[in-house]
Structures are given as structure tokens and as C-alpha cells.
């Protein structure tokens, strides 16, 4: 079996490369879907941990349709004031989060410090900034003091953390407006307000991505189809090409079971090599994507398992070919 693979090494190599490229795309698509699904939850965690958000009834979700209100409306509510608005840095869209960072752990930092003063900015590292960089919110200048990760929303929009006062200066002309308050407690609130759990916020943030997730999922299905067709075609064609070999080997005493098994194993080996190759290849290609590609470990099992099933199914078709090959065909 291995001798046959060696003999056809160029064709086998190209086949494995072709399968690996398609499987690499499968890995990346799986990583994208996973990222789309994980992103809102992670960003919510970075912004406010597991706390509940008390917001006005007019707010659909903090990151999708924030509706700031006068801070005085929430005077009777115990909690940490927070303001979330869309914004831009140098024309690039960001999601601005303004609050106090004194008593909270969020956001987790990968470098630098939390915002403490006017102009201090913490931004997700996908924004491409370094600590000390100057950033412009329109005409207002800020300086990057810290970096965080996994703080993006709506498929890659970086979340940017500033103090509440600085946020109000940038976004609402210095008015004392807030989106709501963060609290660890669950309590009843006045009718004009509502409580959103961290899960509610994440679920709402995911809604605008439904179309994108469906599209990527469809592409993933198509890639699966292509993968299965490639595997099946290659293994079956190999069986057809080797019909004469099988006839000769049967004529000299080989049996269908052993010959079929060798064909089956050959297909499986090629497929699994392609899976490993694709797994390695995606680690080089994924970082070049503008969006974080978070390949779940389950993708390895899904892709390897699915490809193996396709290889076995195609191999069985090949085995039936071996079975139907008469040794008399060796006489040509």
C-alpha cells in the first residue's frame, strides 16, 4: 500500500495538497463561525464581567442600539454608571465604553494600565495600536495606556475603554448621560428601566451577525460537499486505475478482503495526512484574516471524523470495484 503511494507520490502529494487546502478553508470557516458566536460573550465579559445591566426600556442592547439617558434617572439605583456608544478613531469604527475602573477587574489587560484619567484609552489589540500611541476621537485627543484582547463586537469592531467623564466629553458633548448602571445584584427596577443579564447582552449583540453566520455556515456546507467529492472521486479513481493491478493480484492468489482493505487504508491515510496538513496550514493562514479566527478543538474531530467517514464510504465503493474485478481481466 505504502509502495503504491510512493510510486504515485507526485499525484498523491498534489491530491493531499488539494484536500488540505479545502480542509484549511473548513478549519477557518469553523473558526469564523466560532468567533462570531463567542465574540459577544467575550466582549460583554471584558466590558462588565458577569454583572447585570440596568438600562432604559428604549435600549435594545448596549452594543447594538444604546439609548443614553440622564444620569439622574438612575439616581435611585445602586450600581456603577456605564456609557456605551458607537464611535470612531481616525475614521475607523469602534465601540466606546466609558465607566469607572476603580472597583472592577474589567477589562482584563494584556498590557499597560486601566484608564484612570481624562484621555486614557484602553483598546482591543486588533485595533493595531501600541501603548503610548495618540488616538483622535474627532478633534479630541487620547492616549493609549493599555491593551486588551477578545474585546470586539459585531464581527471585529474593537471595544475601546475610557473613563466615564472622558466618554461623555467625546460622545455627548460633556452632558451627564449614561446608558445604565452595572450591578451584581438582581432586583426589581422602575417600569422605565429594565435589567439585562450578561447573557442577554451577549445574545442581543449576536443578533446582527445572524446573516453573516448563516452565510459562513452555508459556505462551510459547500466546502464539506467539495471535500467529500474530492475524497470520494480520488479514492474511487485510484481503485479504477488499479483495476489491472487488482486483477493480477487476485489471479496470483490475493483475496478481495485483503486487497479492498489495502485500498481502504490507503484512502484513510491520505485523508488523515491532509487533515493534519490542513490543521498546520490554518495556523499560518488564520492570523492573516482581519477577524480573529478561533478554531475550536472540536473542529479537529469534526473534520477528521467527517473526512474519515467520506474516505471509508468512497473506499467501500472502491472495494466493490475490487470485488467485481475478475482475475481473468489480468489476461487482458
Amino acid at each position, binding site marked *: 500500500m505504502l509502495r503504491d503511494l510512493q*510510486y504515485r507520490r507526485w499525484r498523491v502529494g498534489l491530491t493531499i495538497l488539494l484536500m488540505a487546502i479545502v480542509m484549511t478553508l473548513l478549519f477557518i470557516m469553523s473558526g469564523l463561525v466560532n468567533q462570531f458566536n463567542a465574540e459577544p460573550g467575550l466582549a460583554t465579559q471584558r466590558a462588565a464581567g458577569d454583572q447585570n445591566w440596568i438600562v432604559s426600556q428604549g435600549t435594545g442592547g448596549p452594543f447594538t442600539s444604546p439609548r443614553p439617558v440622564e444620569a439622574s434617572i438612575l439616581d435611585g439605583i445602586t450600581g456603577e454608571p456605564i456609557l456605551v456608544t458607537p464611535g470612531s478613531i481616525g475614521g475607523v469604527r469602534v465601540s466606546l465604553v466609558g465607566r469607572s475602573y476603580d472597583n472592577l477587574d474589567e477589562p482584563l489587560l494584556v498590557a499597560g494600565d486601566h484608564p484612570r484619567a481624562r484621555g486614557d484609552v484602553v483598546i482591543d489589540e486588533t485595533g493595531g495600536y501600541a501603548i503610548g500611541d495618540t488616538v483622535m476621537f474627532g478633534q479630541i485627543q487620547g492616549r493609549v495606556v493599555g491593551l486588551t484582547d477578545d474585546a470586539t463586537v459585531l464581527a471585529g469592531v474593537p471595544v475601546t475603554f475610557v473613563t466615564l467623564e472622558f466618554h461623555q466629553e467625546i460622545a455627548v458633548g460633556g452632558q451627564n448621560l449614561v446608558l445604565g448602571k452595572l450591578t451584581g445584584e438582581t432586583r426589581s427596577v422602575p417600569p422605565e428601566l429594565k435589567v439585562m443579564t450578561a447573557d442577554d447582552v451577549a445574545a442581543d449583540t449576536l443578533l446582527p451577525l445572524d446573516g453573516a453566520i448563516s452565510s459562513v455556515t452555508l459556505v462551510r456546507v459547500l466546502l464539506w460537499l467539495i471535500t467529500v467529492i474530492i475524497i470520494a472521486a480520488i479514492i474511487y479513481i485510484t481503485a479504477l486505475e488499479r483495476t489491472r493491478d487488482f486483477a493480477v493480484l487476485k489471479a*496470483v492468489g490475493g483475496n478481495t478482503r485483503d486487497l479492498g482493505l489495502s485500498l481502504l487504508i490507503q484512502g484513510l491515510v491520505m485523508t488523515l495526512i491532509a487533515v493534519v496538513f490542513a490543521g498546520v496550514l490554518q495556523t499560518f493562514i488564520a492570523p492573516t484574516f482581519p477577524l480573529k479566527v478561533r478554531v475550536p478543538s472540536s473542529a479537529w474531530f469534526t473534520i477528521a471524523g467527517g473526512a474519515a467517514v467520506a474516505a471509508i464510504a468512497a473506499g467501500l465503493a472502491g472495494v466493490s470495484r475490487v470485488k467485481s474485478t475478475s482475475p481473468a481481466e489480468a*489476461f487482458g
Partner: protein
Amino acid sequence: MIDLVAIDDLVVEYTTDRYTVRPLDGFTMHAPPGQLVALLGPSGSGKTTLLSILSAMIPATSGSVHVNGIDVLGLKGTALEDYRRKTIGIVFQGFNLIPSLTARENVAAPLLLAGVKNKIALARADELLDEVDLADRAGHKPVQLSGGQQQRVAVARGLVGDPLVLLADEPTANLDHISAESVVELLRRLRERGRTIIISTHDDRLLPVVDQVVTMHPDHPSPPAMLDEVHLVPGEVLFRQSGQSDYIYQILSGTVDIVREYADGTSAVIATRTAPAFVGELGPMLDFPRSATVVAQRTVHLKPLTIDQYMATADPGAGARTSQD
């Protein structure tokens, strides 16, 4: 001496393209141990069919085939695999070596498939490659070997199970005379060790070196000229499909149908001939059996012609209406 190979009244019939052909019809042959037997005949005369029967690869319609006392036509399962591994060796036309394997691995393949340990199988392969003077080519792939060398590797593979009978299909086909001579010399050497070797060939130059020649397609002498005309009434058969060809018929008056008979018992008129025309000319000229049945459609008068009479009568340049058979 007891026959190592005994074939009696063998009939092989199969259906192709809806009609039935019978490449072997009542074939009988016996060969004692240590004999080099040549099956001589043109393409389609049943040589390869006979080798396939001896290899237990295709079924026979009737008759008996025994090799070393084994009823070949009744073999199944492991008995069949054992027979192919131990009793017979096969050398295929065109060598049929596995391209991905070296000469040594090709020779060892039947043993490896039988579960013999790698080391033992390869040692046996080396021994046989030495016997066919290819010890120095053991590590070469088929593509790196000449045609003659590939054929000798194929012979070595056929011998790996130390079979009593070696079957070789056109062993000298596609070889230059030097390679062909070395293969023939090898087969003669193997025969001297008590092995029966049956080769199929259409090359009658090999005949002086073999012990028995089996003509697969006996010559059919031309029939004598006939003076009498043939008169048929509607529905009467002139000759039948698969029958031995004898005369070519000139249709003097009337009309005949040319009918193809199919394996499922049905038949169809494939052409009609009306005087003046000929019918049934290709069969006698090619010495083929009749490929169709000819039936009188209306009362018909025909004149039987030998090939010479036909050639003298017919005017090929005139595009005379002729049938395929």
C-alpha cells in the same frame, strides 16, 4: 504416464452484445508432466479463454478440467486460492507487473498475499530472480527493465509458488528476437525440471521447440465446387448462425432475410438480400463461423460458390450488394 493436465469435451459459451459466442466447443487436450505445450491459433480462437479456465478464473459451460487430479471447474473459496497459489503459475501477456513494486517485490507478491513472512518471501524471490538471470535487477522497478527482463520477472513470479503447471499467455509477444529467445530458453529449462508449461501463441516459429502443439483453430479445407443450385421455399433456412462456414451463395432469384439470433431466444432481421446479390461471403473467406442465420423470405434460387468461384464471379469494384457474413 498419468496426465497432469486433462481437459475433456470442454465447452465455454458466453453472451456478448446480446448474442452468444462459443470460443471453445468440445475441446479436448491432455498433457503429461514435463511437457511444453503450445496452444496455437489466431486471436479469438479461444487460447486465452482456455488459460482462464485452467486458472479457474471463468466458468465453463460443460466438460471437465483436471490438473494434478484437481477438479478445476468445481473449485471455490480457499481451495480456489490454494489452487492458484500452489498448483498453477501464470505469466500474463504484457507482463502485468505491479508498477509500484520492485522486481523482487513483484516476484514475492503472491507469497506475501498468502501470508508468508516478508523475509522468507523476499529470499524466495531472490532465488528465482537468480534463476532467471536477473539477480542484479532485483531492486529495479518494471519501468527500469527491458521488455525481456520484465517477461523474465513475470516468469519468476509465476514460479514463486513452485507450481506444477505454468501457464504463459503469448510469452514472446512484443519482444525482440533476442529477448524472445531468452524467454523460450528459460521455458525449455523449466520444462526439463518436470514442470508442465502451457503457452498460448500465434507465432508458429515457436513450434519446433515445443513437445505438443494444440491447434485451437483447425484448418477447414475449402469445400468442393457444387454444380447443383439450391432451392428454398419461404421460411426455409439456408445456414444457421454459429455454424461452420462453407459456401458463398449467389442469389439467382428471390429474397433472403439475414437474421441475428440473440442469447435470450429472440431474433431480428438485420438485412435483406434480393437477386442479384451474394450472401454469406465473409465467413468462408475469413474462416469464421456464420455470424447470422439466412432464411428464405420468398422462394429463392441460389448457387453455392467456393471462394475461388466467388472471386472470379464477383466484381468488387462494382460495389455488389454483399452481406457481412
